[in-house]
């Protein structure tokens, strides 16, 4: 199968591929979290499973444990920043009047940290490491 030009430009070299994977990783994790917290503020087993699979795949693409761990930390940081931003948009746009806006921002920080730490953070990290090990063995 031939690479299409847009895809070719995404994975033109190793550095670019790594950046693309981290961005996709962050987008996927942010999406999994967003659909969960904006429905029920908690993650289900399916959400944990999807997050684990995403990290497994991302780890496998990076092909390197060190890159996978660092990439995961970047991706998770970016994902949480995206999620926090999405959650406080109503406060930023004036849909929530003061002082409720400050309270809502604090509340969402609390919700996001409670759902992420520590179990879920470790689970996705393990997925990334396993993925990287599998990728090293399979793709090399």
């Amino acid at each position, binding site marked *: 199968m031939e690479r299409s030009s847009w895809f070719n430009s995404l994975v033109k070299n190793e550095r670019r591929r790594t950046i693309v994977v981290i961005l996709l990783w962050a*987008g996927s994790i942010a999406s999994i979290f967003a659909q969960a917290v904006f*429905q029920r503020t908690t993650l289900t087993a399916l959400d944990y499973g999807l997050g684990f699979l995403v990290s497994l*795949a991302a780890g496998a693409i990076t092909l390197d444990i060190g890159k996978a761990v660092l990439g995961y930390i970047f991706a998770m940081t970016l994902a949480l920043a995206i999620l926090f931003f999405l959650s406080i948009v109503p406060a930023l746009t004036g849909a929530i009047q003061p002082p409720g806006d400050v*309270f809502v921002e604090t509340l969402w920080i609390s919700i996001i940290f409670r759902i992420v730490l520590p179990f879920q953070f470790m689970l996705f990290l393990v997925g990334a490491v396993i993925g990287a090990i599998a990728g090293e063995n399979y793709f090399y």
Partner: protein
Amino acid sequence: MGGRDLLTLVFVISTIASSAVAGAYTYNYYQFYPGLRSIELKVHSFQYNPTNTSLNGQVVFTIENPSSYSGFTMTEVLTSYDITPPGEGPIPQGLMLYELGRSVALTPGKITSLNMPFTGTGNGPNIVYNMIQNQQATQSQFIFNYRVEVYVSTFMDTYASVIILFACTTQGTTGECQQGEIALATTGPSSNGGGGGGA
């Protein structure tokens, strides 16, 4: 295209798909706060027929969610009220006992009636009765002020409870309500009684 490229391509496609799903839920979340703000409480009817021991009254409120957001459920309604005779200060009458029974979904566009009988407490009924009997005031001159707290169950229940406050006034056979603040209070497992803020 090798296996690694294929996996990267699948990753791109799955990220786009999951972003679309998340986008739909995020959009729905953005309807949440305006939806809360739009919930309306109205006085449907009001009447009372006082004796020296009871006001023998009944007020019927209606509550409606006119927004398109469908995740609100009313779990409890607490109403306190006072009576203001003409030319005098308010006489507090305490809580109006009302059992909602079961949670009621605030389905968009659906109107729910809250039928609340009341009798009055303390000297309230006697004061009202005597003023009417002595022709110091007519029945329609007494103003009834209600503070209605509507407890709303939402997707945030695990971490925060939502209470919408309404201030209603009735006089004669009519009345009107205004939404006050929306109180959010933390309910999470590690919170100590809960902080709060108005939305």
